[in-house]
């Protein structure tokens, strides 16, 4: 034979070191080049830091009453104070904790269950898929926020209930995406090849197929995270958030939204802005991840 099978095709240059991680690195590099991603990450990072060290950053204790009521923004209270004299800036900072604990947990759980369900639906097909698809379809017809509200009012407004219900409502949506990806994937010949060497169904699903549908799953996770923030904020706006002493953003907006009209705009504006900035940042990240994943 006269072939020299020694040449390697590597995207880009530098064929030498650590070629193994090249693909992932390449995606990462592409994502990092997107300004939307960087801005989104920066905003998210700020909120994460706020959530981790609220008391260090906040100039006042978020529950501290002993300052003047309804003061407009000033050096001492950059976001003003609320109707009981609490520092809105400190409350907004401290409020990051609840949402950044609940929303990611809900998104992760929802994606986890969605992935499992979607994998089973897409791979096993047959009756299981038909039945599950119908259930998923029916779930999609449910208004998410309303069901969340219902669950919270009946089961209590603990963080776990919110996480559970949001995750449960996301599961079918994620499952549908994963199912579609798995349907495409299961037709590929490496799956046939795995069957030919006698791999178990579980092995094929979770060891062979799963890594290859991680792209859409990662995209789905970031997108779901955005929706989770959105949903959790909306739920707490509608009165199904964490109970009041917690400086939760949605409840702050809800408690105060009539204050805009009375001139105490800062009480609503800053927590509302915090929600918007967090959702936008997550969506910017999601958008960037999606663009890069879909391009590759």
């Amino acid at each position, binding site marked *: 034979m006269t072939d020299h099978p020694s040449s*390697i095709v590597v995207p880009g240059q530098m064929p030498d070191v650590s070629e*193994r991680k090249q693909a992932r690195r390449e995606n990462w590099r592409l994502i990092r080049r997107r300004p939307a991603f960087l801005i989104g990450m920066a905003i998210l990072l700020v909120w994460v830091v706020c959530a981790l060290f609220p008391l260090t950053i906040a100039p006042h204790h978020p529950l501290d009453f002993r300052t003047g009521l309804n003061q407009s923004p000033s050096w001492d209270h950059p976001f003003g104070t609320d109707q009981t004299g609490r520092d809105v800036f400190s409350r907004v900072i401290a409020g990051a904790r609840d949402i950044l604990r609940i929303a990611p947990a809900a998104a992760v759980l929802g994606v986890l269950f969605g992935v499992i369900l979607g994998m089973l639906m897409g791979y096993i097909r047959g009756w299981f898929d038909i039945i599950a698809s119908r259930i998923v379809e029916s779930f999609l017809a449910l208004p998410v926020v309303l069901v969340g509200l219902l669950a919270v009012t009946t089961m209590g407004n603990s963080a776990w209930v919110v996480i559970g219900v949001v995750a449960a409502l996301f599961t079918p949506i994620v499952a549908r995406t994963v199912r579609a990806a798995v349907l495409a994937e299961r037709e590929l010949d490496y799956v046939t*090849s795995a069957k030919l060497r006698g791999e178990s169904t579980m092995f094929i699903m979770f060891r062979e197929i799963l890594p290859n549908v991680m792209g859409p799953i990662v995209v789905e996770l970031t997108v779901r995270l955005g929706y989770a923030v959105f949903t959790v904020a909306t739920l707490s706006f509608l009165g199904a958030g964490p109970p009041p002493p917690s400086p939760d953003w949605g409840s702050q907006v809800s408690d105060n939204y009539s204050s805009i009209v009375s001139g105490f705009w800062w009480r609503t504006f800053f927590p509302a802005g915090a929600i918007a900035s967090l959702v936008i940042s997550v969506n910017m990240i999601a958008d960037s991840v999606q663009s890069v994943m879909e391009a590759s």
Partner: protein
Amino acid sequence: MTIVDMGHGGARSATAGAPALEVDDLNVVYTVRGIDREVLRGVSFTVAPGEAFGLVGESGCGKSTTAYAALRYLPRNGKIVSGSVRVGGRDVTAMSDAALQEFRAREASMVYQDPAQAMNPTLRVGKQVVEAFTVLGHSAPDAAKLALEALRKVRIADPERVMDRYPFQLSGGMQQRVVIAMALACHPKLLVLDEPTTGLDATVEAEVLDLVRVLRQETDAAVLMIAHNLGIIRSLCDRVGVMYAGKIVEQGPSAEVFDSPQHPYTVGLLRSLPRHGVRKTERSLATIPGILPLIGAHLPTCVFVDRCPLADDKCRTEVPPVVALEGDPNRFSRCHHVDRIADIPEPEPGVPITVLSPSADQPGVLELSHISKTFRQRNHAVPALVDVELELGEGETLGIVGESGSGKSTLARAMLGIDAADAGGVLALNGTQVPPSTTERSADDKRALQMVFQNPDSALNRSWSVRRILARSVTKLTGVKGAAANKRVEALAAHLRLTPRHLDLKPRQLSGGLKQRVAIARAFAGDPRIVVCDEPTSALDVSVQAAILNLLADLQSAERTSYVFITHDMGVVRYLADRIAVLYLGRIQEIGPTNEVFNGPNHPYTEALLSAIPSVDGEEKTRIRLEGEIPSPANPPSGCVFHPRCPRAMPGVCDTTEPQLVEVAAGHSMRCHIPFDELGRLQGVPLPTPNDD
């Protein structure tokens, strides 16, 4: 032999009069991630009115870019950096948007690779064809009339009905005819054909090419044809340019270039094709070492130097000149060593392979009897395989050919148990019956039967490293684990000429050829007795295909493995297979030793398949053409399933009675009502003498 300057205005057409297409020192870049990557590096050629010029080369050489640049239709990230494209004397690169629109409407047309995608799926065919006329200024009723006429001209028998259909309701061949009709609407000065038959079945391809050939005579359009199939170029084009890495490395009249190539690349390309009926045991195929440079790669002085058997220091330091051959500036080669072309070594001799043919006392490694496969579609039984009987000897290669939809892949999947065959058939390995489904088969049975798939991108798990892919197969098929398995993987890799470095890469970091090599290594991980190869080289360039075919032959020689080789490429099957089975609508129409099948007499279907192949050797063949498309297996025709398309069908017989598969000569069976000798007479093939039995 003269060296001519190939600067501006270099290769002027020798043909009298202004050229229809004049490409001059065209440089095109694609901007990828902010970096300009060169795709075309000074391409120049001319095409005279009425002349057909072909561009050939492997994927990524820039031939399609050239075609699109000629009509100034580049992707968003592509741009012409220098050079000019003149059509009828006007510079296309300098046109305003309006002028360009007018130019595309009236002067240039294109026929595309994938006709199904080239038409708007949401509009009726008629509307789309009519549009090609209204854009020229015809009124709607006129355009409708002209459209009908245009469809008739491309030999669409029932144009009214076709006009009323949606593109996806037409067969691939019909779709391409419609696209051609649209392209010819404006009587273009320039007609660009971009791989117009790739993806079509050989019989349909032949039809489309016939049509193009006929239409060429009716128009004086200059034709620029892009194809990777050398045979098509040879049969259709007056002249040809061989492209490599964005440059035309050799150019000249088709017959001359193909019969007497004067550039090492052209030589390599031609020798890597299985030609002239050569078989694997006689000679291995030539391969071109290395791989095509990526687009935008920094290239050495001679673009081919890294892969050239003649390369020397001069090649590495000096840009090779354009060497006009025989004083003709249109017959040239871009090589320092045109005079040493003859020194390029011939391919190595073939490998010896012992075939143990099955006999009464020696059962074949694989035996299939009464194998059928019926799919269910909305409560309809769709018989995809009907009563297939096969035997495979040790070390034997059985080629399976047929159009798409003939049941080739179904047969492979039934053998492997991926889609279990219907109950009632018998599938035996080494004389022992095995269950129809792979999940019920024993580990040993699984190990004995493995598969190499058509598309290595699909066949290899892209998130696994090569090592993991191979190790898993080794462990799963042989039970060897841990360090021992790893050792085996390394041995296997070495056997398949994969370096240890490849083992730690992911499939996407490998070239197509290497990927297929990994896939083959995986199939061989458990020392299989039979490997089913489903079009393993159809996605590969010819030079890479050659290497894979050589490898398969080597492995067979060493391991005495049997192959079931599914392909649509008659050249490949002739090179590799010991016997050939021809499938049509899930039924074996003909099965016999390779030489007998190729030499005939044949079943009329085989005859049609064989005559559809455009030969790079320029052989003239009796052509028989098939009408229409392969019918749906859900409603097979009565009688002989082939009779509606059979040019030799005998009414009253073929449409009523299904012929049996009858042995017409030793090991050669056929399913046809026409007697064997009659077929021989019809096909002008002398019958084998009786004492050959």
